């Protein structure tokens, strides 16, 4: 009996089915589309290379998202922490939305999403959009469930504040959002 290839579980087919969600996760998490494309590509290759470590019948979506988020953080670390909290990063974040097909309203939402800390962003995407339970999301992010819950609620508060304060109109780097942003980044 051959365990490989002939099993009814088709890794490639399952990957294909999950690709739209995985891509939405990458795009939501990253500051811009180029970064998201790079992330998605690396995540696909990583997942493919690690496919023997996946147990068919378990949650493949959570498995894939875990690979993608780990890849996201390792890329971020590689990119260097020297620019992470600097104004240069904000400027880049604020101005990078070319190639997006979403409506203006959604683009504004994405800008706000880019302004909150990555761990909070990740949390609210996993729970609020990707359809994971708090428990699953905690597992994907490798944190305690209480930590996940508090990140989600901080993300909601931060987004609410950013979107209200700015009326989702002008996110100039020197605009009034700077203080709100700074506050969230240092909390």
């Amino acid at each position, binding site marked *: 009996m051959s365990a490989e290839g002939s099993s009814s579980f088709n890794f490639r087919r399952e990957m294909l089915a999950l690709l739209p969600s995985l*891509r939405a996760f990458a*795009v939501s998490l990253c500051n811009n589309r180029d970064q998201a494309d790079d992330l998605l590509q690396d995540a696909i290759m990583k997942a493919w290379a690690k496919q023997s470590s996946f147990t068919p019948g378990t949650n493949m979506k959570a498995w894939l998202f875990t690979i993608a988020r780990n890849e996201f953080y390792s890329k971020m670390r590689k990119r260097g922490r020297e620019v992470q909290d600097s104004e240069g990063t904000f400027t880049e974040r604020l101005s990078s939305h070319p190639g997006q097909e979403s409506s203006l309203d959604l683009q504004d939402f994405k800008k706000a999403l880019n302004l909150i800390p990555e761990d909070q962003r990740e949390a609210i995407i996993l729970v609020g959009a990707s359809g994971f339970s708090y428990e699953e999301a905690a597992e994907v992010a490798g944190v305690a469930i209480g930590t996940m819950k508090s990140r989600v609620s901080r993300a909601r508060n931060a987004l609410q504040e950013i979107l209200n304060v700015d009326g989702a109109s002008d996110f100039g780097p020197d605009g009034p959002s700077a203080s709100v942003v700074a506050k969230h980044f240092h909390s």
Partner: protein
Amino acid sequence: MNDKKSPYEEISVKLKRYYDSVRDEEIPDRFLDLLERLSDAEEQASRSAKNQADIGKKH
């Protein structure tokens, strides 16, 4: 009950709409190609491994 959405609800709705709008986009060809290449490479590798094994048997 009333027409005033809670701010949380509004954030949730926007997030979901944003995420879904990306999810519903067509997957760019480069990613489909990538999966195909990975799959082909794997098939080829297992085929040549099998050939090697067959050759090994003959000798």
